[in-house]
């Protein structure tokens, strides 16, 4: 979707706070959100792509103005309501009004160290060979669909070159709609001067990781 989250190259967002303190969490509640997200029980058909899409669907002003982990809370709240696990009213006052959860069990404290050391893998075997090879010229497709996609607007219609091929990876556009299937993932190199008209050094490079169906041969 052409949402407000798709920020690459947008202008007018001001300077960066380069002097931010370095500690992990600036407010205690931030860590609580992260901890909940990492350990709560959840419907089996949630995915990180569905989460990302639900986050993209936050009202634009809220998306831009709320603290980061607050937007996670908003997103998980919406996912819980959408899945019928909680109601808006329950999220508003924190009081359970439903039956006991029938979801898979929550992560127990003792399981945290193992969970924290387990990488999640997104590669998926594919039977078909990749359509492109490193060095091939490609163009990112101009049109996107209204659902979740990881093809940013700023490369749409722009020509680049395949930098690397990573084999099959979970295709987010499908996964966010509940379908776990792989598609070949590439790293694609774009000359920054092809992306924007007013750059300092046109031969600087921006790399993006893009799936095969985002690309067309050139």
């Amino acid at each position, binding site marked *: 979707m052409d949402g407000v989250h798709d920020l690459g190259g947008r202008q007018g967002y001001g300077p960066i706070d380069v002097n931010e303190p370095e500690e992990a*969490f600036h407010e205690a509640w931030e860590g609580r959100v992260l901890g909940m997200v990492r350990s709560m029980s959840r419907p089996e058909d949630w995915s990180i792509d569905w989460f990302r*899409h639900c986050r993209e669907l936050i009202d634009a002003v809220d998306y831009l103005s709320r603290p980061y982990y607050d937007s996670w809370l908003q997103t998980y709240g919406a996912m819980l309501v959408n899945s019928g696990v909680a109601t808006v009213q329950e999220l508003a006052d924190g009081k359970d009004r439903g039956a006991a*959860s029938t979801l898979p069990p929550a992560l127990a404290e003792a399981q945290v160290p193992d969970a924290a050391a387990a990488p999640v893998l997104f590669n998926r075997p594919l039977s078909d060979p990749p359509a492109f090879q490193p060095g091939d010229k490609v163009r990112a497709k101009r049109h996107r669909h209204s659902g979740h996609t990881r093809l940013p607007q700023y490369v749409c219609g722009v020509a680049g070159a395949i930098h690397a091929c990573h084999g099959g*990876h979970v295709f987010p556009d499908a996964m966010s709609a509940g379908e776990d299937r792989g598609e070949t993932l590439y790293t694609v190199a774009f000359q920054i001067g092809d992306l924007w008209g007013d750059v300092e*050094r046109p031969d*600087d490079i921006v790399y993006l990781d893009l799936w095969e169906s985002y690309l067309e041969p050139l």
Partner: protein
Amino acid sequence: MSGLVNKGRAMTTKKIEHSSEKVAQIHRELHSHLPPEPALRVKALESLLVEKGMVDPGAIDAWVQLYSEDIGPKRGAQMVAKAWCDAAFKERLLSDGAAAAVEMGFAGWGSGHLKAVANGPQVHNMVVCTLCSCYPLAILGIPPTWYKTAAYRARAVREPRAVLTEFGVELAEEVQVRVWDSTAELRYLVIPERPAGTDDWSEDQLAAIVSRNAMIGTERDLAPTSQGGN
């Protein structure tokens, strides 16, 4: 398991409704009904999940402690320092970042498809996630807030040199900037250049001067300061 997508658990066929319209509407309702302060919203959610038996408060504490103490940029700094001292490890890190993370005992959230990219005299790398906030958490810990702001996400791919200037980085004329926009599940780690005058330093000494920002790419020249020097 912490994973939202969990390979170890069989996918069920039960389908939730994936309706953008419906979720957008729920967001508007939450906006109208939830408490005004983030801390209060979080408290309500935690109370609710505990009441429903959907979260173990001790597990939350454990995650907070992990990310506050154990899982942070020190891990990345150790990997960088080792890569500086051990050419074979650097090779492994560049060719298979995920395996290098396992070798260091740093596997975890975001290490499964780790890609290390090395700076050089004519190359400066810089990492961003324009679409959300992807970051190698297992290696660098919690990303700084600025990394997640609209300003950084918007500007890094359009005016990386202006962003670098804002961070105090000066680039020599011959340096090319390479920006890595983390649009998939690959997670990028910048290997900064080893500063001159550190030939006789230990890995621990070296690790102490590798900053988090240098591994994101918003810092370049690491100085051999008293912090790391002997």
